[in-house]
């Protein structure tokens, strides 16, 4: 652990860590569940296409959903068995909505596909990235961003630091801690994969200083592997494990909301992601399991290696939830959510299940008015003014919330945590964000309708014109034929051949033949003008399309992370709507959890307020 200069981020809070209870026992393997339900959409980006049908037999590790597009990651069968269902199933999502799942009944044999380890160093980087995608490697810290898509350095900025996130700042969660303690060597090998792809100058592994065992194990493994990675102890301060906060602490760089970290020469991966990357390439094992901390109101808190798709209630039962357990929190108590459906499956983002009880998490005190004490602003790691955003969110003045940078909010919960008036600030921000997105979407839909209408008008006109041209042509041909006949007759009568000559142009266009029966509804001038108009319109449409492409808009050109946020927001919104039906009536509620993450962008040039 080399001595290096660390930087501070503003704000942050120190909730009781509650980690000790789940680190006393080593990682255990969770027993094979009775059923596994693998959601197809488990990462940010495109929803994988199902490759199996009901009744198919699958092997452990077999790909059952193929990545859809570059920002997407494949999903695999966690165990061998029979596909019982491909369709909607309870989801690990706060919205409580269903999601597309492949439901597999395990056959108990847990039989693997043929696993192939690859010597990734011998492969071109592009192929390594494809492999990672097809092995389903995504960010396991919670963001589930497809990892391969993060392994490309910026073209203009050299990669300086690769930050490896072992901070694990959320209370209760200890799966990364145990992973580093027990499997450090393989984590280090995984880090080397990312290092080889990105070629940074330095690799910094950040671990909160409340995990000395993990840090020691990692340092040991780094040394054993002969790597020059630096293991750095960072002060325990929530949310030091936020990617942006950890990057700040280790490098001093602040990645703004509208920038990719690679544009600042830095990239960040979670330790568990590195581990799965190595298992994928070095062992040929796709991501079909992960470590999950079972803790909270349970008899025996512990970390388990859990198959993706395991029903949460079945999993939690292993740890022995106490009788007064009244819910399951997925994730930590700061950013997690109460799972609306206990049978929802464990997904790649599931790092922790906390048995919830009123004793452990007492009901919140009643909300008081904001006294503008500023505690929230002091706690905000993104240096926002939560009480101002709250003020405007409450007043439904959403434009103002945007002026106060509501979209920089990472929903870390520090503000709510410290507020003496017990205002659920984050809840207001989620609400405001969802409202803003909804309005954007409505506007988009309206703009889209307008575009479609204009297009239809344009098409009708063009069709009319084409019809007219056809008619004119037919008339001209008729005239030409008549003329030819006349000429032939004349020729046969010994008339001069030149007479036929004027007929020739007639065949190519209506021309100025007076002979044409007045069948053409358009005069040639009119036709020419219409053609010109059509050409101009087409050019305008092209220009419009081009502008739309090049103008960054509020909801176009989103980073996949933001797109995911939109999807999440949509889902939460749907839930909000359900609960407050009378308040938030919007006719066009989309089934958000399954909707494509990004709203399809119609070709419009609406001047949405881009930043």
């Amino acid at each position, binding site marked *: 652990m080399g001595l290096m200069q660390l930087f501070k981020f503003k704000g942050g809070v120190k909730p009781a860590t509650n980690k000790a209870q789940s680190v006393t026992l080593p990682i255990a393997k969770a027993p094979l569940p009775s059923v596994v339900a693998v959601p197809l959409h488990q990462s940010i980006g495109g929803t994988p296409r199902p490759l199996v049908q009901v009744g198919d037999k699958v092997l452990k590790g077999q790909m059952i959903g193929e990545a859809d597009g570059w920002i997407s990651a494949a999903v695999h069968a966690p165990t061998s068995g029979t596909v019982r269902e491909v369709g909607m199933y309870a989801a690990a999502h706060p919205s409580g909505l269903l999601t597309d799942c492949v439901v597999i009944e395990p056959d108990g044999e847990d039989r693997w596909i043929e696993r192939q380890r690859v010597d990734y160093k011998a492969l071109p980087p592009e192929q390594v990235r494809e492999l990672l995608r097809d092995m389903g490697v995504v960010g396991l810290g919670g963001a589930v961003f497809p990892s391969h898509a993060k392994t490309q350095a910026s073209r203009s900025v050299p990669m300086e630091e690769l930050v490896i996130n072992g901070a694990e700042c959320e209370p209760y969660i200890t799966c990364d801690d145990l992973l580093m303690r027990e499997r450090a060597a393989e984590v280090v090998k995984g880090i080397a994969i990312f290092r080889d792809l990105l070629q940074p100058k330095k690799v910094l592994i950040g671990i909160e200083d409340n995990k000395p065992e993990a840090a020691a194990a990692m340092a040991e493994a780094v040394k054993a592997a002969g790597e020059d990675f630096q293991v750095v102890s960072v002060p325990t301060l929530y949310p030091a494990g936020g990617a942006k906060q950890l990057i*700040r602490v280790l490098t001093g760089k602040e990645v703004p909301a509208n920038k990719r970290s690679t544009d600042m020469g830095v990239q960040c991966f979670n330790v568990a992601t590195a581990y799965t990357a190595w298992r994928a390439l070095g062992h040929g094992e796709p991501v079909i399991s992960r470590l999950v901390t079972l803790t909270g109101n349970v008899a025996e808190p512990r970390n388990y290696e859990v198959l993706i798709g395991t029903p949460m209630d079945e999993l939690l039962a292993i740890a022995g939830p106490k009788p007064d357990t009244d819910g399951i929190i997925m994730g930590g108590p700061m950013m997690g959510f109460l799972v609306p459906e206990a049978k929802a499956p464990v997904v790649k983002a599931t790092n922790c299940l906390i048995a919830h009880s009123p004793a452990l998490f007492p009901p919140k005190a009643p909300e008081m*008015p904001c006294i503008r004490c500023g505690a929230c602003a002091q706690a905000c790691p993104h240096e926002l003014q939560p009480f101002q955003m709250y003020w405007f969110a409450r007043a439904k003045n959403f434009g103002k919330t945007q002026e106060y940078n509501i979209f920089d909010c990472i929903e870390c919960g520090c503000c709510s945590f*410290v507020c003496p008036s017990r205002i659920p600030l984050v809840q207001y921000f989620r609400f405001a964000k969802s409202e803003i997105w909804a309005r954007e979407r409505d506007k988009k839909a309206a703009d889209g309708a307008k575009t479609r209408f204009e297009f239809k008008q344009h098409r009708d006109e063009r069709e009319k014109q084409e019809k007219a041209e056809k008619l004119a042509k037919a008339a001209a041909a008729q005239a030409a034929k008549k003329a030819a006949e006349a000429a032939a007759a004349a020729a046969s009568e010994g008339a001069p051949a030149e007479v036929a000559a004027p007929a020739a142009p007639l065949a190519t266009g209506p021309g100025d033949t007076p002979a044409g029966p007045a069948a053409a509804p358009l005069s040639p001038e009119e036709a020419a003008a219409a053609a010109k108009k059509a050409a101009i319109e087409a050019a305008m449409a092209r220009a419009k399309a081009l502008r739309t492409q090049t103008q960054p808009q509020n909801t176009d050109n989103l980073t996949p992370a933001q797109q995911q946020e939109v999807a999440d927001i949509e889902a939460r919104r749907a839930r909000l709507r359900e609960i407050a039906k009378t308040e938030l009536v919007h006719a066009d509620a989309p089934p958000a959890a399954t909707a494509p993450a990004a709203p399809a962008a119609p070709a419009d040039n609406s001047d949405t307020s881009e930043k």
Partner: protein
Amino acid sequence: MEFSTSPYLLKDTSVRRVMTQVLLALVPGIIAYVLLIGPGILAQLAIATLTALAAEAAMLRLRDKPLALFLGDGSAVVTAWLVALTFPPVAPWWLTVVGVLFAIIIAKHLYGGLGQNPFNPAMIAFAVCIVSFPALMSQWPGAGSHLAPGQQFDWIFGLTPRLDGMTSATPLDALKTALRADEGHSGPLPFLAGNAQAVIALCYLAGGLFLVWRKVITWHIPTAFLGAMGLLAGLLWLWQPAGFANPVFHLLGGGAMLGAFFIATDPVSGATTPRGKLIFAAGVGLLAYIIRVFGGYPDGIAFAVLIMNICVPLIDMTTQPKVFGMKDQ
């Protein structure tokens, strides 16, 4: 929004706890006050507290708000104590009542209650009373004369005729003359009991530092307030030592310490951004000095705070801090 979302863990805190810490921080100053000036202040604190709670309860009832929740938040008691501590210790009981009623009913509840008042309620009370009852608001126990406890209570409850035997029943202009006459000499104000004022001020300072330590307030407001006042006082004193009192005199005299740590730091009516707090408090410090030295009132804190309260929206708007990652853009 009924359903509960994260964070599920909350810090053990509440408005009541914040207010309790403020009250606690005032205790050293109150003890010094009792020891050095007399126990009359305890009667004033009790009168103010009871009046505030009654007025608060009545207003909450009228506005149909949960009584227990808001009555227990402690904010009315803080206002009451600040009224009592800024009023003369021998003010008649009804003056304290009037002041507190003004603070709670007009300055707080008519503006929307907790968290909504644009003006500091205690300072509204002070301003209204000093304008309406200038003589009574200026009756401080005279220098060197320690009023017997019984005598203080007699005065407060109107059992002895006022003015008679009053050590410093001076109207404003007389006070001012006294202040002027004393300037140039370091030392306590002549119309105050010995150097009691300075000792009490130091106790407020200790309480204020406790609040900073407990993170109930930040350093910005007290520092800028005292810094600006001290700087202006220092410059004028250096320029004309005979015409102006030295900065220590100003910082430890009058309500400077109480103002800097307990009054200007009222979060509801003050600026909220770090730079905004500096500007706001420096403004209060400067105005307080100017009013105190050149104006017609014995102390300028109340008016300075109220004037700066008006500027708060503008200050906050123009001092929004840059957010994470946007500092060099």
